């Protein structure tokens, strides 16, 4: 099997990212495949990008702008209060 090399783009392992570990993938030219030397993830570029999109779902407000006024207004919000589960805001 061919030597693994850093690909043209230095992708991190998406599976390791999910457990908050930055670990560079290597690229196997013969198999046209990226693979991780830490965990057992392997896949192509499309699979990496798809998992990165999933990773970003932890940031529902990733593209939301919270200004000074809006953050200050949070001081006045009643918030959630109870020992029963509250629905996640959409």
């Amino acid at each position, binding site marked *: 099997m061919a030597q693994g090399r850093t690909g043209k783009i230095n992708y991190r392992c998406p599976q390791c*990212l999910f457990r908050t570990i930055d670990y560079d993938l290597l690229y196997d030219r013969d198999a046209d495949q990226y693979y991780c030397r830490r965990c057992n993830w392997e896949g192509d570029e499309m699979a990496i990008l798809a998992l990165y999109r999933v990773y970003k779902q932890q940031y529902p407000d990733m593209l939301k702008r*919270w200004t000074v006024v809006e953050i200050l207004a949070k001081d006045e919000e009643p918030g959630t209060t109870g020992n029963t589960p509250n629905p*996640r805001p959409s």
Partner: protein
Amino acid sequence: MDKFILNVVHRPELMPEYINADAQAGKAEEFGGKKVVGESLDIFRLQQDIAHANGIKCTIQMTYASLYSDEAIQLAKDYHKQYGDEIGHTFLGVQCDRFRATYGSRELAMWLFPWDLKVRLVHDSFERFKEAFGFYPTSTGSYFLDAELINYIKEKYPGVKIAVAACFEEGPKVFRHTNNTWYTLLDGGPWTAWVPSKACSHAIAENAADDAGIVAVPHLSRDLLGVMDNPGDMFGTHPQNIIRGLAYEDDRLPFMYNLVDQYQVMKRYNKGFSYNLVYVGPGWMGKAGRWECPYRILKKSYEDFLAYYGQLKREGKVTVMTMTEFADWYRANKAVNEPICALWKDTIFGTKNQCFWYADSRFRVQIDLKLGGAITDIRPYASKLKRPCGAGTPANQDASYPFIVHARYRGGPFTHYAGEGAIKSAKVRFHGEEVDLSACRSTGRYEEGDGYRKLIVRPVTVEFRGLEVRIETSYTFRENTGTIDIARKIVGLTDPTAKVEIDEFITACWGTREYPEDLTGCTLAVIHDDGTRHAIDYAYRCREHSAEAVAAVEAVIPMVHTRIRMTPQTGPCKGYYEEGYSFAPNLKIGLCRELGLNEELVTTFSIERAA
């Protein structure tokens, strides 16, 4: 006061860690190669140009390597002359041919050097600085500087006024993030500017006699909620760190603006003052890109970020200073033991989550509002633990200030079937049912007054079979006394005649990381109202003791020279201790009392140094 102050720091690093990976591995032919040096200085120039284009004055931190580069020295002089930039110093970026020939080491982390090499480097670089510029620097820095080194620098170079002295909450979480290879184990310090103690740089100084003589600032200004359960290196005033956390789309990173705006909000909790430090090393803006991110976006993110500060400056909302100017301002306007406070809100995870941080000379405390306002992290600064770090010291790489509660490293409110995790919370009991208030999400309000800061947790509803109870919690921090008055008040009962029991408790331990440390030698005591004590030495034997109408309960954790005590303030309380066992390696003390409608349990929780 209405002051939001910005420091922007750039360093002409001639061998950034992330550009010259081969050289890091010791390949001499690549080491400090012309291409790398050229690119590094180009990035430095680019960063400087971006700042100056936005009217931002910078602090240039000269590295050891750059102090031997005529080009870098001339650049610094020119920037100083043209823009008024401060020429300062840093212990980052030591690696170069000269360093290896002189010191024979590939060590990049100056704070981890053996002591003899630390002091040698201080002298070498400060004297070389004077040779190059004709004066000694008044600002310096590293990822971390322990108190021993700060004291030494102040003794030999008393003109130093300020240092980048730590990297906020870079500890086990960042270590893990970096595949257990980035040895910045520095948890436990303040998140904004402080005057460090002579005994321990993480801790805020007690008074003038304890003043280490500098103002310390953290390496970056971080998201105080993001760092709680994530590596801080994805959530700071460092656009490329945000990119690292993938919290961006194309070239849009609104979170970086949210961070700046939230730091402006921090003025509300700090008597009108807030502070940001921006310190992006050149390795984060290399032409080859960084991980998945191309150079174009790395560069644009920095341009956009500094453009926003430029806009705030034009609007009169931020004051840009050099580091030394900021040190002078801080000394003129803030006390040596100035408390710092933050009621921080989520602006990225899409929740209403909030957290509250408080620190003064006696402790640093983190409160998680989504845990009903439970205390989830306590660092006992009152102990002023001497913890020199680096080769030859007991701590070596572990430069963190120890905790006595850490709800994430040590379980907190959730354990797997056995034992209890470390947390300071309260339980409510009614007819055999029990609910921990950490199961009740809430948010907070802030108040302040003469000598105190107060967090009021909005009332939560606890649901029992046949009874609903509304409980309001408040924390009153008595500044620089080591005490917190904790009040639990019944503000609603569906049966106004009912009584519920409140159990105010702390489950504590000690350490700097996830693994348990030995508790043998700790003591637990119930102190009766006649002054007699029922006490045990900790031996993992699961012993318990309780008594009615106690004067106080206390625990001593000698490994961190810390005594914690809970004292009832309103009416008689039952007090208890629980020893724990090896599968539940914690110690617990608590106070209990029955309450009816509009009654409250007030306890004083204190932290002091134990001999």
